[in-house]
């Protein structure tokens, strides 16, 4: 537990020191998404900064999850979904024919709404990604990758004695941290989180939020959330979606204190949504 506290204070310090110029990690240009005939996303363009947390907020069905799933091309797995527009990651178009979506997803990790550990041991859950992508040669290296991912996810101390126990046997909050560790294990550059705390109690939520704050130093994180407080607590940038359109996007502090659009104002003050 000591280690965690230290990590946390360190994060707080670096938070204050964070004044370096913003690097754009993902550029989205004119994205439209259709489910069959129905259009779910209308012409969205936005730049997501590296080493920062960007929050997508908005009422249910506004397309924020759909937009999130464009970034690792998860919409490809849905038969009826069609995406147009361009997304650049470090300047390269991810929808280009030369890009293998399977490899893209190893660079863009994802954490889902409901914890979804595989029906395997804790160890095998973490080792899954490194194994299929050949990231570790030999058992010892794999052990190191697993330990480091679990440490980064703040789960190591809790599970180090039962790495071979099934991942499904953990508590909800631990399962979600296991899923985050699983995503981290393949050393992604971007981590997408789709309402990662919606199935968790307040304590587990606080733990995950701390973790997100720690991970911000190394990764570009995009989080979809229904909780305005969560967006305000963890993110540096906030995008407000409404009816498939991007209404407003900017620094979190400004969005929450001085929104330009009246719809944003109404939503964050709880007048609709």
């Amino acid at each position: 537990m000591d280690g965690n506290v230290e990590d946390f204070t360190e994060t707080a310090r670096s938070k204050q020191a964070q004044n370096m110029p913003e690097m754009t990690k993902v550029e989205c240009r004119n994205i439209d998404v259709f489910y069959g005939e129905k259009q779910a996303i209308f012409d969205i363009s936005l730049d997501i900064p590296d080493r920062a947390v960007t929050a997508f907020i908005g009422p249910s069905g506004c397309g924020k999850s759909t937009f999130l799933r464009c970034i690792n091309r998860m919409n490809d797995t849905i038969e009826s979904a069609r995406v147009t527009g361009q997304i650049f990651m470090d300047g390269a178009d991810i929808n280009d024919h030369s890009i293998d979506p399977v490899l893209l997803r190893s660079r863009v990790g994802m954490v889902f709404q409901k914890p979804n550990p595989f029906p395997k041991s804790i160890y095998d859950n973490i080792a899954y990604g490194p194994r299929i992508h050949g990231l570790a040669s030999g058992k010892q290296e794999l052990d190191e990758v697993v330990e480091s991912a679990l440490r980064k996810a703040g789960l190591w101390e809790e599970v180090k004695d039962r790495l071979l126990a099934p991942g499904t046997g953990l508590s909800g909050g631990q399962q979600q941290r296991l899923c985050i560790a699983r995503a981290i294990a393949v050393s992604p550059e971007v981590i997408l989180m789709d309402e990662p705390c919606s199935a968790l109690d307040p304590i587990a939520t606080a733990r995950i939020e701390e973790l997100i704050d720690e991970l911000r130093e190394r990764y570009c994180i995009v989080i979809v959330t229904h909780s305005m407080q969560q967006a305000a607590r963890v993110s540096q940038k906030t995008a407000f979606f409404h009816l498939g359109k991007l209404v407003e996007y900017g620094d979190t502090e400004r969005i929450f204190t001085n929104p330009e659009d009246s719809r944003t104002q109404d939503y964050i003050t709880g007048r609709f949504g």
Partner: protein
Amino acid sequence: MLETFGHLPIAWLLFAVLAAAGFVSFYAGRTQAVAVGSGTTERLNSQPNYHGYFVAMVTVGPAAIILLLYGLFGESLVRAQLASELPQRIRDLGALELGQYIDRIVEHVARRDSVATGNALFDAASDRYTNLLGFSRIIALVLAIAAAGTGFYFARRRLSLNFRARARVEDGIKFMLFLCAAIAILTTIGIVGSLFFEALRFFSRVPVHEFVFGTEWNAQTGADFGAIPLFFGTFMIAFLAMLVAAPIGLLSAIYLSEYASPRFRSIVKPVLELLAGIPTVVYGFFALQFVAPLVRSAANGFNALPFIPDGFLAAQPTSALAAGLVMGIMIIPFVSSLSDDVINAVPQTLRDGAYAMGATRSETVKQVVMPAALPGVIAALLLAVSRAIGETMIVVMAAGQRAQITPDPTADLTTITVQIVALLTGDTEFDNAKTLSAFALGFVLFIVTLIFNLIALRVVQKYREKYE
């Protein structure tokens, strides 16, 4: 009078009377409830219809039970009474002959245009049987009417504003449903019991160890009752069938649930399940006409290869392989349909998780979906095995009759089910080891499939993943 009742087609008559009584008592109850509620239903605890149902239930229910019991046991009582009245010399014939004598009487009486045979004893006994039957029917009828009347009277006395007819009707329905479930279970127990006791009779003639460990089977001559060749044939054919059905069924289930477009799936899945609807005798034709000759010529071709000794494969006109192949095709839908359901039940979030880790579709299936679906898949396979072991028609037609132990799949083998059919078809008497051995085989077959089903159930329960 007694004679008339002894001849009536009474079952239909009773059914009509019971139905009529049900309607009458329903309307009586409803009308009374409306009257109690002085024309409105607001103050009644239960709606008038429920009062009607209640009265009908209490009127018809006990009467129906009495008649049902009479239907089940009435005739045996009458026969027992008749038997006790027959002269001593007939009763001394022994249980079997006595039973057959009474059977002849019953048959004679049942024929409407029957005339006296001239045999005084037989004719007298026939008349006595008719009278006894009529008498018993009158008693049953009187009892039933009395029960119905009493029920009707007391049910109507209970109707009041606060009477909770709805709850009583609910109890009645619950009891009826319980009865139906109990009938299914009792029937199963009955089947097992009859198998068991006949099997015991067999084992009193042939020692158990000879049956279970013997390697010679010549039941038709009544000489050898070693069941091992039959078990061997049964499991050999079931194994061959599973070699076909397990991979094809499982892989087609994976294709249908993970790869196929919804349109393709909506067409192919019903077609695949159609296979399960084809009568097994049709599969038998297919095996006999098409597959068995094919197997034979293939085996002959193999024998003709260089370095293969002549007659290496038996290449019989009917063979274990022919029966096994076709049986495998028959049980494909059992495997694929159940596995498909199980695979579909694996939560989509697990697949998403694997895709998001950068897994390909086949990696996802192999490493995430299948491990999650495994218990269900194993259960599906075990159910298919027990289906293959119990399958009869295909093996009767295409597997042959020879009881032998050979690893050669092109030889003809025989199975437990084939032997049961061979032993029990045609004119048989249930008093010799030959026919009784069929019951012993049936009993063992039942035990084996029961064990497979129990294991399947246990596997499912034990390893069922708990997805919240």
